[in-house]
């Protein structure tokens, strides 16, 4: 069992290995110039150099801190707003036009505004990530809460629950699958906004490193940082999926 699962994991990710090999081969044979793409192996040594002096991890950590803070704020405010919108018509009527207006807007357009209002520190990035993650969470929470079947609410009420208790005990858990799906989308968005905002407004962080090494022409390290971001995003998503499966164990 154990052996076969290792083998199947290997097969699942073998396209990545193939990509790495093709990358190495393309540069070594000169199909792609070394000036614009360092060989995969050099990217790895570059990564190792950054990792062994710890710089990579402290930078990644300060980036992660921003992403997590922005996302956490968005989860708190987004789920609250979405569920209240489903619960109360007045709140819905009030918030709906605002949401429809801001939903399609690319949040990266707000980067200059963020600099103007919050400067170059953590705050500007946290607020940007918060804004970018907020709407997908609001919308999914709203849809989830809206979709709760009447019979569940009626059952709870006739078992003695008050209207307010129904909100916490029925609507929130029943909407949980959709809320979590929204948060997963937001998680991906948080990485996009994190890196792109750190390109423009930052003095540290993984996005700042990518643009810094790019400007200096240290491409092996630049690619090492990009791969680190990819890995961070991948593991964050994986971790969240595991969490989702745990929470939604009741779903078959």
């Amino acid at each position, binding site marked *: 069992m154990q052996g076969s699962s290792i083998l199947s994991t290997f097969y699942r990710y073998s396209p990545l290995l193939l990509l790495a090999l093709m990358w190495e081969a393309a540069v070594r044979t000169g199909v792609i110039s070394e000036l614009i793409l360092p060989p995969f192996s050099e990217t790895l040594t570059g990564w190792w150099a950054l990792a062994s002096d710890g710089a990579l991890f402290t930078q990644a950590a300060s980036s992660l801190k921003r992403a997590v803070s922005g996302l956490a704020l968005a989860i708190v405010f987004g789920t609250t707003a979405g569920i209240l919108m489903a619960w109360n018509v007045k709140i819905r009527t009030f918030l709906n036009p605002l949401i429809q207006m801001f939903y399609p807007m690319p949040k990266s357009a707000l980067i200059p505004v963020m600099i103007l209002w919050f400067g170059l520190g953590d705050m500007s990035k946290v607020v940007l990530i918060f804004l970018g993650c907020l709407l997908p969470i609001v919308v999914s929470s709203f849809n989830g809460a809206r979709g709760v*079947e*009447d*019979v*569940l609410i*009626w*059952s*709870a*009420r*006739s*078992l*003695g*629950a008050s209207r307010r*208790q129904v909100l916490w*005990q*029925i609507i929130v*858990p*029943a909407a*949980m699958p959709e809320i979590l799906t929204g948060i997963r989308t937001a998680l991906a968005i948080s990485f996009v906004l994190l890196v792109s905002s750190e390109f423009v407004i930052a003095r540290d962080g993984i996005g700042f490193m990518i643009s810094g090494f790019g400007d200096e022409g240290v491409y092996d390290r630049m690619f090492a940082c990009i791969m680190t971001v990819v890995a961070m995003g991948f593991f964050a998503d994986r971790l969240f999926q595991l969490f989702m499966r745990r929470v939604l*164990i*009741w*779903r*078959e």
Partner: protein
Amino acid sequence: MATDGTIRIENVTHHYRPPKGRPVHALDSVSLEVKNQEFVALLGPSGCGKSTLLYLIGGFMPIESGTIRVGGKPVTEPGPDRGVVFQHFALFPWKTVLGNVLYGLEHLRVPKDEARERAQRFIDMVHLTGFEDSYPSQLSGGMKQRAAIARTLAVDPDILLMDEPFGALDAQTRGIMQEELLSIWQGTRKTVVFVTHDVREAVYLAERVVMMTARPGRIMESVDTRFDEGGPGVMDRPDFVEKSSYIWNRIKGEAMAAVTAKAS
């Protein structure tokens, strides 16, 4: 808790208002009295408003005009004096069988140990012993409905409102559930309002079958369906067959009316 499960419905008229389109006249001046501990079946063609009437008794929708009194008090909102069982079970999918059955007991502030014991008693009663920790998604339709019935009975309501509770089950499970419901009713003597469109089921289970007309729903006729002896064997007796076919003939006209109304 109060023990008067009398339901008095007076002149209730109701319109169903879909989110889009015109309101539908669902109930037209319906008056009906269900006695304490009586088992009444509401029978009628689909769309005749029988479920709507049940929901109004449950307090799930505001009453437009007329009054409904339960145990002498006007219905304004849902409450644990009226337990409901829905066709599609309406179990809380994120709770286990035990969690579902405990839910109402938690609201009644029953002490933990006692609640646990009481929940177990009802789980045993509906033959779900051993499935306490299963989630609804892991159960068959019949088992889900048993769990839902246990959940409702655990809070000991005066009245059981059942909305086609066996409509989603296969014929065999359905027969078993009917027997179980009858024995539960005989053991607990609750007032039961049972909505169905199955004539045999209505005649077999209920003491009285109340027929409703096609939309807008009105009370058409009330038929006494008590027989001297119980048990499934009664279904083959001539008086049972005769009553069923009488009711079937009365309902058939309404069912036709409902179908043609839909077609036009």
